[in-house]
């Protein structure tokens, strides 16, 4: 099956000089959100730390995000480090906020199953981007919400919400 364009865009940025320069190599990229500025489409990629623990990973609050043009993923519009943002000042980065895998993924037993599920969500993102670019209604909203709600790490959700409540809350239905 064809690779998702959204996944490819994130992958391209993660391999860019800008990413090598700015993003701590220890961080993992999380679920993106869309941003439309003066008619142009951008995606915001959040980054967070996680550490291996028994049967999974401890998750830490989102540390930073990069906003990149959809059509030029090796470039960047904005880079935000949340530790120095006023409304993030009470976030404790020294402790994990939760664990992966979360309850909604209980039925996902293997790496391949998880990656397949992620790829389905990335393809929903592709459909949404197409709809946004063509100013058409997004027909796959319900499907995307289902996948998003299953894959979103509940302990990280409050931080995603701080980044873009309108976008993330539209798809996270718990």
């Amino acid at each position, binding site marked *: 099956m064809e690779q998702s364009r959204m*996944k490819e865009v*994130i*992958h391209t940025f*993660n*391999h860019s000089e800008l*990413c*090598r*320069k*700015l*993003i*701590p*190599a*220890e*961080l*993992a*990229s*999380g679920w993106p959100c869309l941003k439309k500025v003066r008619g142009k489409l951008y995606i915001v990629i959040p980054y*967070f*730390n*996680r*550490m*291996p*623990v*028994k*049967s*999974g*990973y*401890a*998750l*830490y609050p989102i*540390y930073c995000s990069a906003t990149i043009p959809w059509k030029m993923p090796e470039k960047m519009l904005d880079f935000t*480090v949340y*530790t120095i943002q006023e409304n993030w000042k009470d976030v404790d*980065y020294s*402790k*994990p*906020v*939760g*664990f*992966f*895998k979360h309850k909604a993924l209980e039925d996902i*037993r*293997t*790496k*391949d199953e*998880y*990656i397949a599920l*992620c790829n389905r969500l990335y393809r929903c993102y592709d459909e949404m981007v197409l709809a946004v670019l063509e100013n058409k209604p997004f027909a796959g909203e319900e499907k995307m919400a289902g996948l998003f709600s299953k894959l979103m*790490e509940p*302990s990280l959700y409050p931080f995603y919400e701080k980044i873009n409540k309108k976008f993330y809350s539209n798809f996270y239905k718990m």
Partner: protein
Amino acid sequence: MFDDLLSALEPGEENLFAADTDGDSIADTFIVEHNIDTNGDGMADIVVTETFVDLDHDSQPGYYSITEETDTDGDGLLDHTVFLEDTDGDSFFDMIAEWDVGEYDMSDMESLEQLEASDAEAYSEFGHFAPTDVDMDGIIGTPFESLDSWHVQSDNTCAVVSQEFVLENLLDREFDEGELRAIAEEHGWYDNGTSMEDVGKLLEYYGVDVEQSTENTLDDLRSSLLENNQIIVCLDADEIWSGQNEEMFGPGMDANHTVQVIGMDESNPDDVKIIINDSGVTNGQGVMVPADLFVDAWEDSGCFMLEASCATILEAQQG
């Protein structure tokens, strides 16, 4: 609760550790460990640890903590912890916490050590380098010289610790992770991690020659090891930690970890292994990762490699 803990201090075996942390030749940090066997089976089922820090030597600790670890179900493992801490020396506890080891409730999670002790599934199916177990003719590099510098990182510091390993190997002296991290923070090379571009800056700080490159291959890795370079790579940790264990996977994509490559085992050409020192997990010393798996994980960083040597230092010493 405190009285209960104090009463537990009486019987049993006691160990005392003292250290001078500020270099004034007077011990200022004391750790007293009490091992208590309440049921007479010869095994301590309560361990109480007190830590006193008295930097100004006035016999009034500026910091004091007491930890009680208990084996509640008699299985020989300490599974319940109570922790009390007075951080400002006013004789009142500023923090009291209680948790069960292995219980993933965030309200109880107070210490990273609990997490680090629980990552045993990483590398569970791989061997670890031991000179006596391998055909040394097939070994590229000098992994046996690099094993001793390995330790587990204390924070999000894999790049700092990988550089610490390299520094110790090249300069033949011990370095302290905390001090290196402080230097990196001061120079902007560490803030909740290290960007790939800044991997190697600590080495340059100590006069080590470094060269960063991407799009490398296993042949490049082999050539560099044969030139006696020290090597650090970035990769996707999930892929090597889980190996073929399909049940171990995590969120996020692409490279997220830094490790030291200390050798290659080519004794079986059909099963080449890359030998790494990985500070991210408790069993990360001299891990022998199958080459194909290593390359998959390495590709997620664009096959980023940092090569380090002390040619300039040696030239200066000779000249």
